[in-house]
């Protein structure tokens, strides 16, 4: 059965919300976005948690800032890669993942991940970059799907693009179900339309989270955004039910919530989401 765990956050609100889960032994694995700790360091309690789960063989790494589909190669990216080479020896990781899309270009060094279409040039770039990561990681390397798609065709082709990027390097996929939910909402698609050709055999990890609605100037309806700042919608838990039996190589499922969005009155619902997640995976 896949492990069920939490995406670690550095904020004390996260620790306060999740501590009863850790104390009860309910958290089967943790995911650490290691590059978020490179600039300002990591607190003692977080270092201790990472170390404990690393020693137990239940730690995954989730890079945020590599910017896989940035076509330029700068000192910034070189620096990231050098730090990644150190990071993979610092702890024992089950596997590592990064994000589809690009977030660094020109004077912008940390935007939100933006998509590009599947072209010969973008595929070649994606394969080259992913191969760089896979060559460094002494464990399996994977790629996460993106919430933002700029058209229906963009949403429908993303899984094909992901599969084509990771396959030459024997990589895997991290399936973020809230990102899928965003695309279902924003393009009025059914789960079957978006997921029935998904390469589920490549899915080794699943993310579950909440998000928000945001208006735009052009749209009568608000756009669903992957902001990780609310409880998990029932529709995302339904998607988990839908995909679990289809993922023969699934190893771990994580609940994500930004630590600075957790307020005391939300601690109970956060823990409830985690228990719901565990229950669905146990019965899946």
């Amino acid at each position, binding site marked *: 059965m896949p492990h069920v765990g939490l995406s670690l956050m550095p904020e004390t609100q996260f620790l306060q919300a999740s501590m009863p889960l850790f104390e009860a032994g309910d958290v089967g694995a943790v995911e650490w976005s290691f590059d978020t700790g490179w600039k300002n360091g990591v607190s003692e309690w977080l270092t201790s948690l990472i170390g404990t789960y690393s020693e137990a063989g239940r730690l995954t790494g989730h890079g945020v800032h590599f910017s896989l589909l*940035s076509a330029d190669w700068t000192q910034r990216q070189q620096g990231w890669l050098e730090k990644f080479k150190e990071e993979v020896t610092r702890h024992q990781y089950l596997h590592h993942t990064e994000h589809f899309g690009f977030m660094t*270009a020109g004077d912008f060094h940390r935007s939100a991940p933006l998509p590009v279409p599947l072209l010969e040039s973008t595929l070649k770039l994606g394969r080259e970059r992913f191969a760089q990561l896979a060559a460094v990681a002494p464990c399996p390397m994977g790629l996460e799907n993106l919430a933002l798609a700029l058209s229906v065709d963009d949403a429908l082709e993303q899984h094909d693009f992901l599969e084509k990027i990771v396959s030459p390097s024997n990589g895997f996929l991290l399936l973020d179900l809230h990102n899928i939910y965003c695309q279902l909402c924003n393009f009025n698609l059914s789960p079957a339309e978006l997921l029935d050709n998904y390469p589920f055999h490549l899915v080794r990890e699943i993310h579950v989270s909440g998000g928000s609605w945001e208006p735009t100037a052009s749209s009568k309806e608000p756009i669903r955004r992957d902001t990780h700042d609310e409880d998990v919608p029932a529709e995302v838990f339904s998607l988990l039910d839908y995909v679990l039996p289809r993922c023969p190589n699934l190893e771990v499922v994580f609940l994500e919530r930004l630590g600075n969005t957790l307020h005391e009155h939300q601690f109970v619902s956060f823990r409830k989401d985690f228990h719901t997640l565990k229950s669905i995976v146990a019965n899946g």
Partner: protein
Amino acid sequence: MDKAYIDKTLAASQREMVEIFSKCTTTDEIRHHIEHSAIQPELKSWLLSCNPEMLETAASLVTKWGSTDSADGVGQ
């Protein structure tokens, strides 16, 4: 530096994309700038075919989350 793969044409197009998203908020503005940009043809026609509200969403993401601080954490 590692000998990493670079696609200069695509990189230039990405710079323009992010620049446009950082300074435009409405679809009309975004599309106007894309049409008059030097973004490579395949990427340009793709962008111009995208949904208006999603182009505006991309612009708001760049504006809200984008950082011009070259020492922003990673690798520095």
